[in-house]
């Protein structure tokens, strides 16, 4: 009887502890912190000799040879893997950069394992940087985005950004303040709380908008010498990058979309005999569309409400900030400035890009389901001709510590 029990226990153990199939030791995994995706272009001849630019030397030599021009070599992927040895102080290089070319993300990552002694693991990826060339090709963009969404380990909370020029160029930068590029960029995205100058850039949100009608905006990431900047945004129309919005335009767009984070705005106040520069810290409270039903043309009104605090006026002013009249004047200035920026951005999107990333389509489909089916089919043609008015209401609540 006892023998049987032991046998049974053994049998149970062998079948119950099967998770060991998937056991991988932690140091056997190459954690990809950020991934850059570019279109592969054959480097101009002669570049292979002078490939030892300072950035490339900082990174561990990545490519054994220049890959040939092959129809399989469509993408160029840059993997940033943090160097564990750097963390414990045994190495100079904070990041290990691998670059590989391939037909798709999956096979390129598999081929990469022939070159490193670790398993490439995307489960802790923080940032995806897409190069402009890929973003301008709708098929390639859809391919890589699908690979990202389909993967069961890549979180929907990762940040995504588009780099003018190449993604590799961004990832090769080692920021002074934190040389771990992947972590730095992830923090940068989290940190944007104080500035609305770039979009949210959360992968899941981008997917949601793309699944809807194929249009969205994705933050732009710009490499510097020793820093990286996330500002401005790329406008995606029908899964294709069609243009860029600058920082101010992006702020206006974010206000319209209702996703703007708190941020500042500076107005010039003309006093009796002097002009003051007045920066105001603003919180964007609400942003709502209203459909004007009185006209037979589609006319929507965007209503934005903000509240703020004066951050600077001038030392010993003639007219101090405890006068409500002055506050009203400042409020009017802020409203006017926001309005102007918003109108300019709307004009650009309607006339230049002809793409609705403002969310008018989403608003109409949700709140006016009778009207929407009539225009849904050719919304791309309708959108540039609809009338969008803006209406801003600002309340300055606080002025700081002095009068």
């Amino acid at each position, binding site marked *: 009887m006892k023998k049987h029990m032991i046998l049974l226990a053994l049998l*149970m153990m062998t*079948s*119950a502890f*099967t*998770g060991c*199939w*998937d056991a991988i030791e932690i140091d056997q995994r190459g954690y990809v912190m950020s991934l850059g995706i570019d279109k592969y272009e054959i480097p101009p001849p002669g570049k292979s000799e002078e490939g030892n630019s300072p950035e490339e030397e900082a990174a561990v030599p990545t490519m054994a040879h220049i890959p040939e021009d092959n129809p399989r070599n469509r993408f160029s992927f840059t993997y940033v893997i943090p160097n564990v040895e750097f963390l414990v102080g045994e190495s100079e290089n904070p990041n290990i950069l691998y670059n590989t070319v391939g037909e798709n993300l999956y096979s390129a990552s598999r081929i990469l394992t022939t070159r490193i002694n670790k398993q490439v693991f995307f*489960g*802790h990826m923080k940032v995806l940087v897409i190069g402009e060339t890929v973003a301008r090709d709708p098929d390639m963009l859809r391919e890589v985005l699908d690979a990202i969404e389909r993967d*069961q380990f890549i*979180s*929907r*909370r990762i940040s995504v950004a588009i780099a003018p020029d190449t993604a590799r160029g961004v990832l090769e930068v080692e920021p002074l303040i934190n040389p771990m590029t992947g972590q730095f960029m992830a923090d940068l995205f989290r940190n944007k709380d104080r500035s609305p100058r770039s979009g949210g850039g959360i992968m*899941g949100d981008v*997917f*949601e908008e793309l*699944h*809807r009608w194929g249009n969205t905006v994705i933050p732009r990431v710009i490499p510097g010498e020793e820093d990286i900047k996330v500002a401005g945004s790329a406008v995606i129309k029908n899964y294709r990058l069609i243009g860029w919005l600058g920082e101010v335009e992006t702020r206006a767009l974010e206000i319209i979309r209702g996703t703007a984070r708190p941020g500042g705005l500076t107005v010039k106040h003309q006093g009796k005999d002097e002009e003051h520069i007045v920066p105001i810290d603003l919180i964007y409270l609400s942003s709502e569309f209203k459909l004007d039903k009185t006209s037979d043309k589609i006319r929507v009104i965007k209503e934005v409400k903000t509240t703020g605090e004066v951050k600077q006026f001038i030392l010993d002013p003639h007219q101090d900030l405890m006068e409500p009249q002055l506050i009203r004047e400042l409020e009017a200035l802020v409203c006017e400035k926001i309005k102007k920026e918003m109108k300019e951005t709307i004009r650009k999107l309607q006339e230049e890009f002809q793409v609705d990333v403002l969310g008018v389509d989403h608003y109409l*489909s*949700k*709140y006016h*389901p009778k009207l929407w089916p009539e225009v849904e089919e050719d919304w791309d043609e309708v959108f540039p001709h609809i009338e969008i008015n803006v209406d801003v209401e600002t309340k300055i609540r606080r002025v700081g510590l002095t009068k």
Partner: protein
Amino acid sequence: MFPNNDKVTVSQMVTISILTMVGIGILTLPRELIGEAGTDGWMVLILGGLGAIAVSFTHGYIIKSFPGKSYFEILSITLTKPIAYILGLYTIIYLLGIMSYVVRTFGMTVKEFLLPETPPEFVILPILLVSAYLVRKGIEVLGRMAEIIIVPLSAVIVILFFLSWRNAEVSNLLPVFQTPSLQIIKAVPFALFSFLGFEVLLVFGGFMDKPKKATRVGPIAIFFVLLLYQLLNASVLTVLGSHQTERLIWPLLATFRTIELPGAFIENVEIFVMAVWVFTVFMTMVPLYLGGCLLMMELAGGKDHSYYSLLPLPFIAVLSVWDDSIADVYESLGKFSDYTAYGVVLLVPLGILIALLVRKRKKNEDRTA
């Protein structure tokens, strides 16, 4: 300590029904609701729930009319013995067939999310063996197990939903009342099927300690499941938006993947979801399995169903790996339930009901004669 007298209380029966209903369907429900009726899926759910309550009430009525009688006995009394054998076999096929689909979905999902390198057989086999173990112990242990599990389970589920609302956009629930009523009515049978599982009452009814209250079981259980489904559908829609939900195979899991706990050391909250879900799947499998074994015992004769608990296991295991791909699984599951569920849930009880009425009338006639 606990006398094993093979009785379940009403509350145990309710929890068993709830846990049987909540199983693999919840993973795909929001997507399918959008496919059926867009953002008006909640109306379909309510109508389907009401339909299911009506059907389960008749199930309860049947149990109430034959207190202490097993399903097979009820079938034999009302529809004669030969038919009872056929229908009993039909019900067994239904219960174990559905169970094998549950097992298959479980295996696929675990392989996808948790153990990508592990052969699916080794995911399926252990849970089958554990189910068989619980089945051996019978209905009373199952009832206690259900009662123990449901409280922490509901707590975790509610907490997870709360966490997911951080990213919710309530206006995603709009527009409402836009789907043509004909389309909604057409979708009701689908919604009714998303409540499948309440029919275990038919098989377990004979074990109830108060069969007089059998009519309550289904409606109460379905009401709770309806609440859960509405919460689930609303959460998924608000977090993911209808267009995205339509594209995802398992939108429920994607919803939880958007949860981010700032400052927490845990990065992927969906692991908790999977852990919780393993329990619900287990509790979906066991009642179906037990129901099948009990019927097998009665059909083949015998006093103790535990002898039969391992018998269907190889068949379930083979059936559960029968379909090639995930696409085949969902397609053949649809076909299988079309052929069996209507019969087991609607037609057979209807037959019993008619026979019951005929018998009653005959009795009255006899009495008057």
